[in-house]
């Protein structure tokens, strides 16, 4: 029959035209003259309107009345939220995002697992939608050829399979000539925009034909419909279905953002954020125009074919055909074809990118089957994978069409897909606005939501067409009524979409939020969260550079690019990058952080961010992010605050340790200096008497005729100086022993009064020579008995007494010794009427070799070590030694020795 030839030629011509437009668009893009204007962008968004819109809206209107509008209200409301879309675009550009799977994976720490999961959900979720397109084209062909659909035909005689095959070949030719997915498919976008114009024109042509040709305009149709109560109902808002309206608006609002093809067109293919301003009104206007004639066509069809069993989904074709307007019918067929092809092309390209980057690549990168190290150029393999993925997706669509396609109207099938992609909403919105969302949370939410969707929507769609048993729907899984697939936990009375949407999002959001709150993000995750949520705040270039530290070689990175992009494309990109860095030849680039970023982004364009991350880290020796860098960037993430506190604590500890070390070092230096001073002083003290001894000896030796008196005087001095030397050496050794703790102590009961008496007696000659009066005030015998070394105490007493004698004036000197028991100690005072001590000297005299200023006149008798030694001794017995004095009023040296505790029990209790 002629019709089939006409249809074949028309279809081929139309597809050829699309191809030509795409080639033209690509050529212009390559020449740097993009044809993507704001209008083209806005029109390309209308890829949202598929054959579901073209045929299915009318069908839906015949049963659900105005509820078909919800599918367009949702997107209209969503696109008005420009800020959300701008944010998605900005993030995607800065992160070089290639798909929605890439977006989610990248946000949650470039997780391959998450990327794969999103891809699986997207593919399975969208397959019914592809089937819908096949079904629509197939049905429209049946109408044109006036055949009846025969689903029982084997597949090789099934025209739908042929359609799927043709679409696969066309999409492969169309969409996978280039490799880099972030290189926008400008030609494709242009062709899709053209598609949008064709389907709108075709639909409106049919609408005008029916409304003004078949009927007498809008008023006529509605007046005629008013005669039938069931048609009047279609034109009214049904308040009892408000819940369904709400859920359909919500689910379609999500779909405009998260369907893989919408994400592709709206975000990935966007060339200028400014284009959104046009899209904000042009896209809703487009939706309005394409819906104006839906109700007239629905009512017109019902009135015209009253009860003749014509499928309302085909009214757009059957109405013109029934009037013999074959040209218009052909145009309508083309419109439906364009709606279907546009959707299939963009959807399968987007999905094939995801399958290739997020499922196939990670597997290939790990498997031994493909030895990546030996392959110089992998771009061919990548293209092959994408082509295979396109064919596979269309095949799955066909399988679903055969399995479940007959059970549903067009709209019903589409909504199953919408509900599936709605599962991305929590992870997407959370990812863009909630920094605490974690990878584990996103995975949990997605898995749960997807599982619920599978159980409550996808499996029932198989069951309804008889492919699997209905028992899990009617009786519940394992016979548990609360597990009835479309009435979970007894929630009956909702339509299946609302029911599934409610439970899947309930599980999804609940687990996403709950698990996120319970888990902690890793460093990469947290930094990605910061970059996504605060994308407008950070200068991307600046943050990326200082987030990376490591070693890389240009050769290895270039080899990587050549392998995945192909040498030609890799060199082209390298040259462009080199010139942006103002380097003449890319071979002279240095492998700095920026270059690694560049390479990773180029790879991300080819194989997705998660796989790119793996590949780059395989050749780059990366250091873990420094905490301080992470801190700079992640100041708001909670675990970073914990890091920060930890760091601050560590830093404080370090500072404290440093200070302690510095202090210890100071002390050591001081001790070293003291030791040097001590040695220097000892040297001086030893050399001084030696000087006299040597000089005088030499003179005696050199001059035998020296007078006897001189001789005796010199020899006397020599003897005295020798004694001084001996005393000095003994005291130095004594002090050294005391200080090092090696002195020997003969500790026993000592009566201090007796020690004082004996000391005074031993110095009697000294007192007598200088005519010094000595008085003692001592307690009765046995009252001042302490545990000490008797000889050492004697040493202290003699030292103090001989000091006193030294300083009191000859003839008028007075020295008074008092011993008294006070509290738990014995207190000994040696008071003189000498010149006293200046306040500054009171401490100095206890230092080694430091004598009071006026001690110099009588130097040979003092070594400057007596008081330091005495203090060491007293302190050894647990007492103290100090001096109380005012200049001109004499000095009183005081020392204490504690009484043994068992002697003074009653004293202690009072």
């Amino acid at each position, binding site marked *: 029959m002629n019709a089939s030839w006409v249809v074949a030629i028309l279809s081929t011509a139309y597809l050829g035209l699309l191809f030509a437009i795409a080639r033209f668009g690509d050529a212009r893009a390559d020449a740097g003259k993009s044809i993507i204007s704001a209008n083209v962008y806005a029109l390309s968004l209308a890829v949202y309107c598929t054959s579901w819109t073209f045929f299915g809206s009318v069908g839906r209107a015949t049963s659900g009345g105005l509820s078909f509008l919800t599918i367009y209200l949702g997107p209209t409301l969503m696109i008005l939220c420009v800020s959300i879309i701008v944010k998605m675009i900005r993030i995607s550009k800065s992160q070089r995002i290639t798909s929605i799977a890439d977006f989610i994976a990248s946000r949650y720490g470039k997780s391959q697992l998450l990327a794969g999961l999103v891809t699986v959900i997207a593919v399975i979720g969208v397959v019914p939608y592809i089937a819908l397109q096949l079904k629509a084209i197939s049905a429209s062909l049946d109408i044109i050829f006036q055949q009846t659909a025969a689903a029982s035909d084997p597949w090789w005689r099934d025209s739908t399979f042929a359609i799927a095959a043709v679409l696969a070949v066309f999409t492969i030719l169309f969409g996978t000539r280039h490799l880099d997915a972030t290189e926008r498919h400008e030609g494709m976008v242009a062709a899709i925009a053209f598609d949008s114009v064709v389907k709108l024109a075709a639909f409106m042509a049919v609408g005008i034909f029916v409304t003004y040709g078949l009927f007498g305009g809008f008023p006529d149709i509605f007046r005629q419909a008013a005669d039938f109560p069931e048609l009047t109902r279609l034109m009214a808002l049904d308040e009892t279905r408000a819940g369904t309206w709400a859920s359909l608006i919500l689910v379609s609002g999500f779909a405009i953002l998260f369907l893989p093809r919408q994400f592709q067109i709206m975000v990935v293919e966007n060339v200028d954020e400014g284009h959104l301003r046009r899209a904000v009104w042009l896209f809703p206007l487009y939706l309005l125009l394409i819906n104006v004639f839906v109700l007239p066509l629905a009512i017109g069809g019902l009135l015209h074919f009253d009860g003749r069993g014509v499928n309302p989904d085909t009214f757009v074709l059957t109405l013109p055909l029934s009037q013999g307007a074959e040209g218009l019918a052909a145009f309508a067929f083309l419109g439906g074809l364009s709606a279907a092809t546009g959707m299939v092309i963009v959807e399968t390209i987007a999905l094939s990118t995801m399958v290739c980057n997020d499922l196939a690549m990670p597997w290939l990168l790990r498997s031994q089957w493909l030895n990546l190290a030996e392959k110089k150029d992998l771009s061919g393999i990548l293209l092959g994978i994408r082509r295979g993925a396109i064919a596979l997706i269309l095949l799955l669509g066909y399988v679903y069409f055969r399995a479940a396609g007959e059970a549903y109207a067009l709209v019903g099938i589409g909504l199953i897909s919408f509900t599936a992609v709605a599962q991305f909403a929590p992870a997407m919105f959370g990812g863009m606005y909630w920094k605490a969302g974690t990878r584990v949370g996103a995975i949990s939410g997605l898995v749960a939501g997807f599982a619920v969707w599978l159980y409550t929507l996808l499996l029932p769609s198989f069951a309804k067409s008889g492919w699997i048993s209905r028992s899990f729907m009617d009786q519940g899984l394992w016979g548990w009524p609360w597990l009835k697939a479309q009435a979970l936990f007894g929630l009956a009375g909702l339509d299946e979409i609302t029911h599934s949407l409610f439970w899947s999002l309930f599980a999804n959001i609940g687990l996403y939020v709950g698990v996120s709150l319970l888990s902690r993000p890793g460093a990469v995750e947290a930094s990605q969260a910061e970059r996504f949520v605060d994308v407008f705040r950070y200068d991307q270039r600046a943050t990326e550079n200082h987030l990376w530290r490591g070693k890389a070689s240009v050769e290895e990175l270039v080899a990587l690019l050549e392998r995945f992009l192909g040498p030609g494309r890799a060199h082209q990109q390298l040259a462009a990058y080199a010139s942006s860095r103002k380097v003449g030849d890319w071979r002279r680039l240095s492998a700095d952080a920026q270059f690694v970023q560049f390479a990773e982004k180029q790879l991300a364009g080819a194989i997705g961010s998660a796989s790119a991350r793996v590949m780059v880290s395989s050749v780059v020796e990366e250091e873990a992010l420094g905490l301080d860098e992470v801190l700079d960037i992640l100041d708001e993430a909670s675990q970073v605050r914990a890091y920060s506190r930890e760091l601050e604590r560590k830093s404080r500890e370090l500072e404290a340790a440093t200070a302690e070390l510095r202090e210890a070092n100071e002390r050591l230096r001081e001790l070293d200096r003291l030791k040097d001073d001590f040695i220097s002083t000892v*040297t001086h003290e030893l*050399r001084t008497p030696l*000087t006299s001894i040597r000089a005088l000896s030499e003179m005696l030796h050199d001059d035998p005729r020296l007078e006897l008196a001189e001789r005796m005087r010199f020899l006397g*001095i020599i003897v005295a100086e020798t004694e001084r030397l001996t005393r000095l050496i003994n005291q130095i050794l004594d002090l050294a022993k005391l200080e090092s703790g090696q002195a020997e102590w003969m500790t026993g009961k000592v009566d201090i009064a007796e020690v004082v008496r004996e000391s005074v007696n031993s110095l009697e000659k000294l007192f007598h020579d200088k005519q010094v009066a000595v008085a003692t005030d001592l307690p009765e015998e046995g009252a001042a008995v302490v545990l000490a070394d008797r000889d050492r105490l004697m040493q202290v007493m003699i030292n103090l007494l001989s000091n006193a004698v030294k300083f009191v004036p000859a003839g008028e000197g007075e020295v008074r010794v008092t011993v008294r028991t006070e509290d738990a100690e014995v207190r000994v005072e040696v008071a003189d009427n000498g010149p006293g001590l200046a306040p500054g000297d009171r401490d100095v005299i206890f230092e080694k070799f430091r004598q009071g200023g006026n001690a110099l006149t009588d130097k040979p008798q003092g070594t400057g070590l007596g008081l330091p030694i005495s203090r060491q001794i007293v302190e050894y017995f647990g007492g103290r030694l100090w001096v109380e004095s005012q200049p001109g009023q004499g000095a009183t040296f005081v020392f204490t020795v504690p009484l043994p505790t068992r002697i003074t029990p009653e004293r202690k209790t009072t």
Partner: protein
Amino acid sequence: MTYKILIADDEPNIVISLEFLMKKEGFQVAVANDGEEALAKVDSFKPDLLLLDVMMPKKSGFEVCEALRADPSRAGLRIVMLTAKGRQTEVAKGLAIGADAYITKPFSTKELVAKVRSILESA
């Protein structure tokens, strides 16, 4: 001519030795027991050479030497420093502030006399 020697030291026995030694060599001798007295005796006694101990009360030998060298009218005064501290740094310091010789204690009487003579005669 008879040279005049001023001995400045706070150790009585060393002063006795030096005084005896210098007088026996035929020099005219005066004694100071601390730094300030040394400066005063330089003015009153006008010695040709000063035997100057470093560790002295009131003013150290270094301070005395610096004060004397700061006065151009006393450029002809020879100074021989004596010290019981024999560190190299102190020898260097003594010479740097203008002492003609720096002798560490204990010294050889013959060497001291020879040094004093050679300094006096080279002037």
